[in-house]
């Protein structure tokens, strides 16, 4: 493969990745908005009010879902709209998606079932075919657990004095999934690159054939003129 074909292959694969990643950005913009709405509906359904005897006020969970949720999703949605396909956009989306998981886990009172949102989100992030995005998401999950484990351990582990390494156990399950997702990202990216290389080679062959045909037609035209 000559350098022109290699450059064309890189160009094709970059264009395909950009198109794919822009599409995934848009998908996450919709998903984040849906999650935001779901968080508010959930808070209004499960815990609309806090009570003191007969008196009730809007529950803290509702405020957190409305204000905190908006704060989490506004940046990634705007970036998906105005800066689709960029490296920063997908990393912001990855961090925000994990923060949305943390918010939903909190709004459901730490329900173990809601933790599946983390694993589902990681799988969705793999659509980017960028393993570094998976790492960003993992770091956010680990940091959330680590910091809460230090300052507020009951919220993560249910007990006030967990072992210091407990966050590693939780993050370990995430890493378990990450290994396969990162592998699939690398494979997916290679497939795109190899398909782009094939296309570039076909383009080059087609170009060569067109040149040959043109030369042949020119030679025929010259012969006809001579005859």
């Amino acid at each position, binding site marked *: 493969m000559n350098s022109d074909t290699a450059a064309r292959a890189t160009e094709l694969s970059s264009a395909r990745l950009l198109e794919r990643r822009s599409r995934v950005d848009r998908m996450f913009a919709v998903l984040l908005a849906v999650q935001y709405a779901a968080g508010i509906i959930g808070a209004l359904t499960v815990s609309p009010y806090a009570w003191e005897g007969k008196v009730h006020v809007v529950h803290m969970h509702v*405020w957190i879902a409305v204000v905190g949720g908006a704060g989490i999703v506004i940046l990634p949605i705007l970036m998906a709209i105005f800066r689709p396909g960029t490296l920063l956009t997908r990393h912001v989306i990855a961090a925000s998606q994990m923060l949305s998981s943390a918010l939903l886990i909190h709004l459901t009172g730490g329900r173990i079932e809601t933790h599946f949102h983390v694993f589902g989100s990681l799988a969705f992030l793999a659509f980017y075919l960028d393993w570094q995005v998976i790492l960003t998401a993992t770091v956010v999950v680990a940091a959330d657990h680590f910091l809460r484990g230090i300052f507020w351990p009951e919220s993560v582990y249910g007990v006030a004095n967990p072992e210091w390494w407990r966050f590693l156990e939780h993050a370990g399950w995430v890493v378990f999934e990450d290994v396969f997702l990162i592998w699939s990202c690398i494979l997916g990216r290679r497939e795109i690159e190899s398909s782009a290389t094939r296309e570039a080679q076909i383009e080059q062959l087609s170009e060569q054939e067109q040149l040959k045909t043109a030369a042949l037609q020119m030679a025929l035209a010259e012969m006809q003129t001579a005859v």
Partner: protein
Amino acid sequence: MIRVLLLAAGLLWTITIGAMYRAVRRFETTPGAAAAAHATWPDASTLSRPAGAWTLVTLIHPQCSCSRATIEELRAILEKAPPSVRALVLVYRPSDFPAGWENTEVVQAAYRLPRTHVVIDLDARETRLFGGFTSGQTFLYDGAGQLRFSGGVTALRGHAGLNRGVADVVRIAKSGVGNASHPVFGCAIVSHEEGARK
């Protein structure tokens, strides 16, 4: 223009995340008013205590969503404690509120608990006699009517899961020795001022 918009959104994103963690932490870790519990089963109570049996008394505000976690933990306690331990769940209802106001998912879950009797506590009369203020407040009385545990049985507000309150209740009920207390997390049934006026 778009650059400014994104920078503003980035700033808002950072501030919100920090503020949200702070607000959630404060909300979840701030306990309700601790009970001014008596050392023995209150004499003026109309509730009968099974003679010689250990009894758990839990106070519930039926509309307090955080108290779902308390009911879950109460179930865990009853599963782990000796079968002789009985539970009483006192469900608050103001007398000027319509009957059925208290019939929430939390109370339905309480009705499904084993070895448990659910009692509607009109105007928190019994709650005041027991010295409680906060939904989720749990008392453990031994066979002689002595108070052995007073406090909540959740780690945080609305969080079910392993915690010291549950561990202490189960340990005391099994071994028959010791006393303990634990912070209680939930909505107020009786405000501290009201409780002081009782």
